[in-house]
């Protein structure tokens, strides 16, 4: 696989993402793995369905990689996000950032997941015992300016 930023309908192998950023210049790799949580605020999730505007999402993930480059200098980033049906504990997203020193790797990885939740066109549909809902709570928890993504999100995972 040549791309460092990709949307896939298949299970994500953590090593596939990490291996894209390991390099002699790096002493630190931070990895963020988002998994499907069973209970949110006491409500039981049976499974999730993720949908993406895949071509645009990959571009936006790449854009996050470029933002990280600009903010942290010597960083290498790879991100994979899954779509389709995911069961409890399945991996939805893997982010890996390598940097010479660890502080930057932590910060950049955190930045990546926050940006994904702000502006990458991916949606999850909750499937509970008693119904379903497409999640997307920016309206309540973040500021929009002219319908382009800004501000900070406060979603859960």
């Amino acid at each position, binding site marked *: 696989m040549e791309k460092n930023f990709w949307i896939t309908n298949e299970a994500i192998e953590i090593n596939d993402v990490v291996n894209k950023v390991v390099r002699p210049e790096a002493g630190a790799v931070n990895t963020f793995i988002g998994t499907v949580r069973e209970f949110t605020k006491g409500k039981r999730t049976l499974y999730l369905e993720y949908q993406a*505007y895949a071509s645009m999402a990959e571009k936006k993930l790449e854009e996050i990689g470029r933002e990280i480059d600009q903010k942290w200098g010597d960083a290498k980033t790879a991100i994979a996000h899954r779509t389709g049906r995911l069961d409890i504990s399945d991996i939805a997203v893997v982010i890996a950032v390598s940097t010479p020193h660890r502080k930057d790797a932590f910060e950049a990885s955190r930045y990546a997941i926050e940006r994904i939740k702000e502006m990458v066109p991916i949606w999850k549909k909750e499937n509970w015992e008693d119904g379903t809902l497409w999640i997307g709570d920016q309206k309540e928890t973040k500021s929009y300016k002219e319908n*382009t993504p800004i501000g900070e999100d406060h979603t859960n995972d």
Partner: protein
Amino acid sequence: MIDVLFFAELQEAVGQEKVSLQIEGITVKDLKTKWLAEYELDNIDDAMVAVNEEYAQEDTVLASGDVIAFIPPVSGG
């Protein structure tokens, strides 16, 4: 002609992923208020808009061949 893409709850409300319209030279706002009014998409004003895979403003004028996507609040990760 332009292609209009819908995702998540908007896709379910419209009943399809894509609608192709024989229009051009209108703004995104016009598209929403005039051409998509029939779908009664209550939440469309909560959605961001992308034109050719870049976020765009409501006053963007659409050209033939453009792909317009309505992006409901995202929830990836």
